[in-house]
């Protein structure tokens, strides 16, 4: 029977004589409320919109609406040489540009089947781990900020600056690095840079403790992260989660350990794994990973081998610049590589790399031309958003912010 309009507006509490404890529940108005969160919400880390179906403060359904930052990066790849796509990868997960470069270069190298000189592998690993530290610092600062703990943000950003300056010195840019090259890296470490890194390795562990001091005893932090965004190991695997989001649920899966690429096999480190699958465990894993990364950087710096930083494969890798001026063969290579690019054999390849946010994969189809026929990016943020509805269901509206953050989501790679 249709209620008169006035009745609908008035909240009437009916008391069920059988179950008086249910008295507080509204019995008349059971309408769900739809709430658009984003795309301009500060905690949505860019331009994510979530359509929340709410029952009071509780989330009944959360539908992420993506694509506000879609730039057609995969299509852009089809219009340039393999080499030209590297700067575009910078803009995927712009927090961890180096890792995107790394993942892409690894995929292309696998496609053309070239091996990298050992020094380049070491440098790549060191820089990738520094980038992971930056990513986790950034996550920690912003996640705490989103939840309400503002102080940590300044501390993490202070230390992140040191590393960004390091990148600036290394490759000339702080965020859009483009330092990796197909077949190696653009530029070797200078002694000053190595010295700088050594100092950082000693400097940073107490700082991690500092961050932890702020958070680990803070009851607001604890209550807002513990037991929030819980997902079981089975579900996490079914949803295809990866990285700290997966390991928080107790799944010991890390590509760096399982398929040790680059120089990961050559240093001693361990994979931190959580138990409860909640945001707190993921926080703990990320903090722990920073420590592990430092450990790796320290070891790799000790063992850093000498040698070239760029493979020398004719017709694929760029010739050294000084030879271009004098040697016709190098000149021809330079011109062919920059104008037409190298031509990988026909075929397709998938190569996954453990980035700070999870498994970042590149799937490349080559038709034997100088440009990729198709390039697909398996972006962890995008895959993680698939589990968002499942993980947000039943939580309060204020937890949505935590749940976004728990994936370490970056819209650049999510929307691509």
């Amino acid at each position, binding site marked *: 029977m249709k209620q008169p309009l006035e009745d609908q507006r008035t909240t009437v509490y009916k008391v069920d004589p059988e179950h008086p404890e249910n008295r507080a529940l509204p019995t008349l108005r059971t309408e769900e409320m739809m709430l658009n969160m984003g795309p301009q919400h500060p905690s949505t880390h860019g331009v994510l919109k979530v359509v929340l179906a709410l029952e009071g403060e509780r989330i009944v359904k959360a539908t992420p609406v993506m694509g506000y930052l879609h730039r057609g990066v995969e299509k852009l790849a089809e219009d340039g040489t393999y080499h030209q796509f590297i700067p575009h990868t910078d803009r995927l997960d712009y927090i961890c540009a180096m890792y995107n470069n790394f993942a892409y270069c690894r995929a292309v190298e696998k496609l053309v089947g070239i091996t990298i000189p050992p020094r380049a592998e070491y440098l790549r690993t060191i820089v990738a781990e520094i980038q992971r530290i930056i990513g986790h610092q950034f996550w920690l600062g912003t996640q705490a900020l989103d939840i309400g703990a503002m102080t940590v943000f300044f501390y993490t950003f202070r230390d992140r600056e040191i590393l960004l300056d390091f990148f600036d010195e290394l490759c000339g840019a702080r965020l859009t690095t483009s330092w990796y090259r197909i077949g190696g890296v653009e530029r070797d470490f200078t002694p000053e840079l190595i010295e700088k890194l050594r100092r950082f390795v000693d400097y940073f562990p107490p700082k991690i403790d500092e961050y932890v001091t702020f958070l680990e005893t803070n009851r607001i932090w604890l209550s807002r992260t513990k037991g929030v965004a819980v997902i079981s190991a089975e579900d996490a695997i079914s949803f295809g989660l990866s990285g700290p989001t997966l390991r928080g649920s107790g799944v010991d899966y890390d590509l760096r350990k399982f398929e040790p690429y680059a120089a990961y096999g050559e240093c001693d480190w361990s994979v931190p794994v959580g138990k409860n699958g909640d945001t707190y465990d993921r926080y703990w894993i990320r903090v722990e990973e920073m420590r592990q990364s430092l450990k790796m950087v320290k070891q790799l710096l000790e063992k850093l081998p000498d040698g070239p930083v760029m493979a020398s494969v*004719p*017709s694929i890798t760029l010739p050294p610049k000084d030879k271009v001026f004098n*040697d*016709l*063969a190098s*000149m*021809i*290579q330079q*011109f062919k590589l920059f*104008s037409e690019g190298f031509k990988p054999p026909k075929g397709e390849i998938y190569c996954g790399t453990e980035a700070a946010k999870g498994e970042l994969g590149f799937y490349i189809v080559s038709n034997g031309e100088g440009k990729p026929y198709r390039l697909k990016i398996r972006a962890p943020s995008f895959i993680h958003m698939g589990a968002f509805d499942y993980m947000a269901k039943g939580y309060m509206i204020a937890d949505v912010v935590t749940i976004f953050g728990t994936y370490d989501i970056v819209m650049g790679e999510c929307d691509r």
Partner: protein
Amino acid sequence: MALKPVTTPDAEAPSIELSIDGQPVQSKAGVSLYDVISQTGKIIPAMCYHYTFDPFGSCGMCLVMVEGKKAPVRSCTAKAEAGMVVRCEGDDLHAARKKAVEKHLTIHPLDCPVCDADGHCELQDMAFQHGVQNLVNAKPKGLPEDRRSLVLDINMNRCILCGECINICKDVQMVDALQFFKKEGTTHVVAKGDVGLYCEFDGDCLAVCPVGAITNKYSKYVYKPWQLKKTTSTCAYCADGCQIHLETSGRDVQRITSPLSWKNKWGDRAETAKGHGGLCVRGRFGFQYIDSKERLGMPLLRTDDGLVPKSWYETMEVVVERLSAIKAAHGPNAIAGLITARCTNEELYLFQKLMRAVIGTNQLDSSARYGHLNFTRAMQKAVGIGRMMNSYEDITKAKTLLLIGTDITETNPITSLRVKEAIRVYGAQVIVAHPTLTNIAKLASHPLPIAPAGEAAFIQALVKAVVEQDLVDEAAVGAAPEAFAALKHAVAGLSWDTVTNQVGASKEAILEAARMYAESPRAIILCGEGVVRRADGYTAVLNLVDLAWVTGKLNKPGCGINAIPEEVNEQGAVDMGVAPELLPGQSSYADEEARAKFARVWDVSLPDAQPATSANLMEILDRCRRGAIKALYVVGENPLATLPSGTRVKEALEKLDLLICQDPFLTETAQLAHVVLSASTFAEKNGTFTDLQGRVNRVREALDLFEEARPDWEIFVALGQALGARMDYDSPQAVQSEIMKLLPGYYNLGEPRPVQAHPESYLSQGYAQDVGARYALRGDTAPAGSFSLMLGQVLYHSGKLSTRASGLIKLYPNKGHLKMHPDDLARLQIGEHDAVRVTSGRGSVEMKAEADPDLAVGTCFFPEHFNQPPVKDLTECVTDPVTSVPSFKLTRVTIEKLKGTRA
């Protein structure tokens, strides 16, 4: 056994089997092993190979291992033998090929940044593919660049001496302008005689040069391949229908290329019979008019201050208002239209629809009136085919070619290549009947110099010779005995004395030509402007039909009669019915049924076919002069500059109330116009051209529109709609689909349509009555001491359009010199610097004279593209009694040396 492998595609050699990479392959014995391998789809690098000419074997890249041989062999110069076991891949071969590339690279300069071939360079590709590294002992040659030529720079530092340029010039073009030349210890490629290259400039050498040794001066250093947008279109100069690639950046055409390139080297040798994909000098180097500064960017409107640029809105308002006023005041027959055959088929169709269905007049004509209509109308009447009967392949594989009155290498260079290939590869006998010693005559087996204007007489003589020598085909004449009897009677009336006198050739030569033609199983007639652009062109073509008919060659495969149209879409203009006597699809306008069909589709009533409502070019000009026509719509035509002043065009145009010109340029006619509408060139619009073979070729938009200029079809649509008609075409495709409905099967993109001649009704109805009149020769003889002034086309130009292309003007500027035979010059004692006065009944002109030994004694030549000094005005314009084709390219003049002139 010959030293070189056999390359003739039809070689009659035993079939053999050999094994390539383990696969059994069938082949002919003695052909190049490289050809056999490339037929299997395998690509072996070879820098000196191209399928259009014989293997040369200089680059040393096409190495393969043949079982039983210790070292790799060059597959291009090796002959395929039965039971050969060949291996094309392997590390050893890769290394050997790499060595071969390195050999070329060690003497190559470090030139990539400035080289025009960079990015389109086979040497680069080879070095890159084979992973060449470290050329420590590189020693560039350090030679100066040969910049003596007007178009092509030859840089011997970059040359790899592959000989492709020399081979294509010699074998395909048969021009043979280049050669190897040893100078100071190094081999050079130079023009014959080590002078600045001045040749036909077809640019095939440029196209096949795998490195940057031959570069194009017109686009030197201005592009790299990655900057260019490539649009495939059809060349808009002559009717050969060459596919061109317009390579543009922004609104500039940087260069024009064609399918011929070192990149397309793996073709089937037999395929060259259909064309080798190259271009001529006009197509390749004559693109500058598209970007010309003289282009009209805005419509112009005549005010008191002369022609003033105005917006389209204002201009069209004036046009519509005045056209409507004239139509209302004087009726639709006060309006007439002329269009150039350089427009696309869609535009031609729209134009005739606009004139007939919207304005309601049948007073319209196209530039096909200048000659091609003579051919199509005669052929249509006699055999029911309104176009050329043969395809390129037929021409190439002909046994006998009869070229009458056509300087084919100049007017249609790419069609001439088919004739050249027929000579070179298939050993055809070629008879060239032309007053001058043309380039094709120099190559022909039977050059037959005839008197100026002797073409028509020559055809009559051939018919007479065939009939009298009893070379007739019994089956063909047996089918129409009455007609043959009439013909026999008609030719009997000709006396050999008159004939030989008129033809200017001996009886023996004529008889031999007739015998060769009649007895050949594949005999093709190609005629040109010497036949169709004459006042008796219509009957001359009918006489040609007689010749083919009595020798039984009308429906024989590989035989036929062909005329070569000059402008790109003359065939299309005829097919689209842009002539008062034709409807689209070449049906007669007088045919009530056909007219009713179009009237139904267009939903209008068409003007009837009365002489009062129909007018062709000459009649339109006449009516303008008489004041019957008040408004003339001229699209791309330029009658003022084309026709001699004797036709009083200027007077006719000045009498008009409204002269609308639609042209990309401000032509002489447009300068008189009341309104000038700025139109586009072919590079800025979509559409189709119909080439001489009847193939419909796509024209694609390569550039954005020039300023405010609009494509012609858009202007027609706008005008039609403003005049109140329903013309809602949004693109040329919409017009196309209408044409497709009306003329099913017209858009046969690609292959020429096969044709079937049907002379039966022609021979049975009225033939016997008319034939007598056709075999009558005028007995007039040239007055002593007079010269035949011939206006003709030169290779470097096509119509007036090419004179706007700076590249072609640079190659062939108007020097204003009259060409004469050296003997005549000597006889008249005319020196190098002396001026002459050329006098005809129309007046006289003073200019310099220069020697051209190819001309016959008693003739002189001036290029028709220029009218400075106004040589054209000396000529008399005669019109064909049937088709009204104006003929004005030949006249009698006297030449005298001017005293005391030393300019």
